[in-house]
C-alpha cells in the first residue's frame, strides 16, 4: 500500500509495527506539500525543520514504547485559528500576520501528547467567517478535485490538505458548518462534536457559543481516533462539559439494525441540488438495507436557523474581535494621529471586508435600541430550534440530510452576493445553535466529478451512536476508500 492510500489509523499501525517511521511519514507529507501546495494553497505556515525535529523526537519515543497510540507519528495539519506555541497563528488575517502564540490550544497539546506531528497551519476564511476559503488574507485555497472550484470553508485548508494527501488528517473548527461543509466539498470526513466536548482554550473565538474544534480525516475511524485524542474536560474552558465517556472508537463496528433514522423533509425541498438530493436518498436507502428504520419527518424551524445564526454569531464576533487593536499583539498601522485613529486604521487595514461586514452587523444588533429586537429575539428562536431537535430526537436516533445544498461552487461565484452565500449554511447552522454533534461523510460524486457529502446529526453527547451510523453509511456508500480509484493521484490534481 502506498502511503497516499493510508488512513491515519493505518499509518499509525505501521509506525507502531516499525514498518514506517514517523520521520518517513513527515518527509512524505512535506514532499507532498511541496509538490501540491503551490496550486492548492492549503497551508499558510509550514516550518519544515520544526516538523522534522518533532518527527525525530516522536520516533524516539515510539521506539522507547513511550508512545503507543494510533496517532503516534502521524502528520496532522491544524487550522490556523488554533493556537500553536511558537508557531505563527494568523486566523488567515492580516491583523495577526506576525502573531506567534506563547501557548498551545488544549486540543493541540492533546494531539501532541498522542504523538501526532504537526505539519503546519492551514488556510481558512479570515477568522472563520466564510464558506469558501476565499476570504483569507493569504490567498484562496483550491479544491483538490477540481482546482477551479472552492474547497468550501471556513476549514477549507484543512479539508483540502487531507483530500490532496498532504496531511493524513487535520483539525478544523466549526461555528456554522465550517468543518462539515468543506469536508463535503472535498470528499473527506469531518466531525463537529457536541459543544463542550473539545476544549476551546486556544481556539481564537469567532462565535463563542457556537465554536467547536473537530477532526477532518479520510474516514470515520480516523475521525473517531482524533476525537478521542483531542476531547477532554478542561478546567481552562468554562464551557467544557464533563462527559461520561471519552471512548469514541470501541463501538465503531457495531451494526445499525433497528436504528431510527429521521430524514427532515425541510432539508429536501426547494434550494437543494437534484444530484445532492439523490445522494441523500441513496444514503437513506443504504441505511435502510442495513436494517435501520428510515423515514421522512418535518423537523421545523429550518428557515429560521440562518437569520438567528447570523445575529448571534455576528454579535459575539463583534465583541470577540474587539481585542485586535494594535496594542498587545499583531498588526499596527504605520501612521496615526492619536489613540482612536490608531484603532480605526489598524482594524480597517487589518481586517478584510467579510470580517468588517460581520463586525458591523454584530455591533448593530447589540446597539442601544436593537438588542431586544434582534439579539434577544435570536436567542429565543435558538430556544425554539433546540426544542425542535429535542422533539425529533424523541423519535429518532439520528438525523440524515445533506451537508450543503450543492457540490463545491466555482471560485469567485460566492463572495459577490454574501446573503446568497450565507444561505448555503442552511443544513449546518442549526446543529451549532443547538450544540449537537454532526458529521459529514462522502456520499458519492456529482456529474462534474465533485464530491457530495451526507450529513448525520446526533443528539447531544451521542457521538458514539453518530459515529457508528456514519461508519456503516461510509461502508455502504463508499467514502474515501472507494473514491480513490477514480480519483487517483494524477486525476485528482
Amino acid at each position, binding site marked *: 500500500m502506498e502511503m497516499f492510500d493510508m488512513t491515519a489509523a493505518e499509518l499509525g499501525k505501521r509506525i507502531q509495527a516499525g514498518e514506517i517511521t514517523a520521520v518517513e511519514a513527515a518527509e512524505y507529507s512535506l514532499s507532498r506539500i511541496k509538490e501540491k501546495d503551490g496550486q492548492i494553497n492549503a497551508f499558510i505556515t509550514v516550518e519544515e525543520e520544526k516538523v522534522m525535529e518533532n518527527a525525530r523526537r516522536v520516533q524516539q519515543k515510539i521506539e522507547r514504547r513511550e508512545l503507543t497510540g494510533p496517532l503516534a507519528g502521524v502528520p496532522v495539519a491544524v487550522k490556523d485559528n*488554533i*493556537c500553536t506555541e511558537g508557531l505563527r*497563528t494568523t*486566523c488567515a488575517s492580516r491583523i*495577526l500576520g506576525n*502573531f506567534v*502564540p*506563547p*501557548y498551545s*490550544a488544549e486540543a493541540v497539546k492533546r494531539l501532541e501528547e498522542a504523538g501526532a506531528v504537526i505539519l503546519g497551519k492551514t488556510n481558512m476564511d479570515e477568522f472563520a467567517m466564510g464558506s469558501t476559503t476565499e476570504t483569507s488574507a493569504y490567498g484562496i485555497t483550491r479544491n483538490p478535485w477540481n482546482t477551479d472550484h472552492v474547497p468550501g470553508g471556513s476549514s477549507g485548508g484543512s479539508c483540502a490538505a487531507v483530500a490532496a494527501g498532504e496531511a493524513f488528517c487535520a483539525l478544523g473548527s466549526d461555528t456554522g458548518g465550517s468543518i462539515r461543509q468543506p469536508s463535503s466539498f472535498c470528499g473527506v470526513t469531518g466531525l463537529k462534536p457536541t459543544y463542550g466536548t473539545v476544549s*476551546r*482554550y*486556544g*481556539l*481564537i*473565538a469567532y*462565535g*463563542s*457559543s457556537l465554536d467547536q474544534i473537530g477532526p477532518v480525516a479520510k474516514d470515520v475511524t480516523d475521525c473517531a481516533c482524533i476525537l478521542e485524542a483531542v476531547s477532554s474536560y478542561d*478546567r*481552562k*474552558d*468554562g*464551557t467544557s462539559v464533563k462527559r461520561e465517556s471519552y471512548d469514541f472508537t470501541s463501538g465503531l463496528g457495531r451494526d445499525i439494525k433497528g436504528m431510527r433514522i429521521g430524514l427532515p423533509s425541510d432539508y429536501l425541498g426547494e434550494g437543494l441540488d437534484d444530484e445532492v438530493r439523490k445522494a441523500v436518498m441513496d444514503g437513506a436507502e443504504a441505511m435502510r438495507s442495513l436494517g435501520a428504520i428510515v423515514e421522512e419527518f418535518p423537523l421545523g424551524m429550518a428557515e429560521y436557523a440562518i437569520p438567528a445564526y447570523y445575529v448571534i454569531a455576528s*454579535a*459575539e464576533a*463583534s*465583541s470577540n474581535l*474587539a*481585542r*485586535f*487593536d494594535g*496594542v*498587545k*499583539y499583531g498588526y499596527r498601522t504605520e501612521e496615526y494621529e492619536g*489613540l*482612536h485613529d490608531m*484603532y480605526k486604521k489598524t482594524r480597517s487595514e487589518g481586517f478584510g471586508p467579510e470580517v468588517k461586514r460581520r463586525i458591523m452587523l454584530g*455591533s448593530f444588533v*447589540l*446597539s*442601544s435600541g436593537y*438588542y431586544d429586537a434582534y*439579539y434577544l429575539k435570536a436567542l429565543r428562536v435558538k430556544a425554539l430550534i433546540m426544542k425542535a431537535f429535542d422533539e425529533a430526537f424523541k423519535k429518532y436516533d439520528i438525523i440524515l440530510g445533506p451537508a450543503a445544498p450543492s457540490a463545491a461552487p466555482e471560485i469567485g461565484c460566492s463572495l459577490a452576493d454574501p446573503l446568497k452565500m450565507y444561505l448555503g449554511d442552511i443544513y449546518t447552522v442549526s446543529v451549532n445553535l443547538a450544540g449537537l454533534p454532526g458529521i459529514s461523510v462522502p456520499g458519492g460524486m456529482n456529474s462534474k466529478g465533485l464530491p457530495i457529502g451526507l450529513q448525520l446529526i446526533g443528539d447531544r453527547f451521542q457521538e458514539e451512536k453518530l459515529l457508528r451510523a456514519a461508519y456503516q453509511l461510509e461502508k455502504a456508500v463508499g467514502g474515501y476508500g472507494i473514491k480513490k480509484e477514480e480519483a487517483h493521484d494524477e486525476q485528482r490534481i
Partner: protein
Amino acid sequence: MSREYETVIGLEVHVELATETKIFCGCSAKFGGESNTHTCPVCTGMPGSLPVLNRQVVEYALAVGLAAGCEINRFCRFDRKNYFYPDNPQNYQISQLYLPICHDGGIEIETEAGKKTVRIHEIHMEEDAGKLIHDEWEDCSLVDYNRSGVPLLEIVSEPDMRNAQEVIAYLEKLRMIIQYLGASDCKLQEGSMRADVNLSVREAGSRTMGTRTEMKNLNSFKAIARAIEGEKKRQIELLEEGKAVIQETRRWDDNKEYSFAMRSKEDAKDYRYFPDPDLPPVVISDEWIRAVKERQPELRTEKLARYIREYGIPEYDAQIITSSSKMASIFEKTSEICKKPKKVSNWLMVETLRLLKEKGMEPEDISFSPENLAKLIDLADDGTINNKAAKEVFEEIFSNDTDPLYYIEERGLKAVGDEGILLAAIDKVLSENSDSAEAYRGGKEKVFGFLVGQVMREMKGQASPAAVNKILKDKLS
C-alpha cells in the same frame, strides 16, 4: 441665590476584593509589582484565552451583599460591556448588567441630622482595568495590566443622599462592613476603594430629578466632600443662569477644585452589553447562602456589646476600638495573650490613636503585632520597665513592630530593681515623710501613692514600680 436647592446624590463604589488571584485567571492580585509581571494570556486578552471564575469572588460578593441587607439573585450571570480603551485588553469588561448577584439592600447611616437608610440598588462583580501611565519623555502612554482582572465589587446606591456628610457617613459605614468581612482593605489612596459620585440638584420640594453628572477620580474623603460642594455649586450656577446641566461624566481635579467634562465623540456611551458566552451562569443555593452567613464574622454591633460584656471595657472605648476591624482584631488578639483587656484598650485608645493622628494614618494601616504589644504590657506590668520607657518602646513597636525585650535590652531601658539602692531610697523617703508613713499605717491608704511617687522621684524614674510597691508595702506593714 434666589431659589432654594436640594442636592441629590447616588454613589457607585468600586471595591477591590482581597483575593489572592484575579477574577478570571490564576495571576496574583497583589498590589504593585513591576509592569505586566502579574499577567497571563487571559488578563492580557490574548486570542484564544478563556476566563474561569474565581470562587472566592462570589463568596465575598455574597458576604457583602448579605451584610448590606441585599436580596441575592439565585441565578446570576456575567455580561460583556463593550468599549475600546487600552487599559481594557479585550476591549470589553466582564461585568454584570442584567442579573447582578445582589440587589435591593440598604445600610443605615448616622449623621448629626440623625439616622437614615441609604438604599442599595445592586452589587455586581466585575474585573478591574489595567493602569495607564503617561510617559514623561515621549508623547505616549504605557499600559500595565497587573491590575487588569483584579476582582471588583461595584456597589450602586439609590440617589438617597443629600449632602457630603451623608455621603461620607455612607462610605465609612460601607468601608467598615467590608473591612469587617475581610473582603477588601478599602484603601482610598491605593484605589482599593473608589467612589463615583452621581449628583444632581433640584429646587427644594420638587419631586422630579434634575439632570445628573457622574464624577470620577475621587481618592479621599476630603476630595469627595470638596467635589460634592464644587459640583453642586457649578450646577446651581448653570441653572441660575438659565442654562441646562448636561448629563456627562466629569473628572474631578482636586488641586483646581473643579470638575472637567470627559467628553469625546469617540466615546459614544453604547456598551452593547450581552451575556458573556464564555462564562456559565452562577446558581446560588440556599445552602450556599446559609454557609456564607454562618462563616460571616461578627459584625460591629455584636462585637461592641461583647467587648463591654466580656472584657469590661467602657462603651466609649469599645465604640472606638470596634470602628475599625483592624483595631478590634488587635484588641482581641492582644487581650487573648496577656489577659489584660483594659490595659490593651488603654494602649489603643491613647498612644495608638495619638500616633495614627500624628502620622496621618488610618487604623487599617496599623502594622504591629499583638504579640509585641502583649509583651510590652507584661513588661510594664511586672516592673521591668516604667511608664516613660514603655511609651518609648511602644513608639518603636508601632513603627517597626520590634520585639520589646530586644529593644529594652539594646537601649538599657530596664528599670532598676536592685534592692540595695532601692531600699536606701525607700528608707530615705520614709524617714523624710514619717507623718505620711504614720498616716498610712493608721489606715489612710491614699498616702501610699504619694510615697511611691516620692520613691520614684528619688530614683529619678529608674525604678521598677512593681518592686517599689512591694518593698514599700513590706516596710509599712
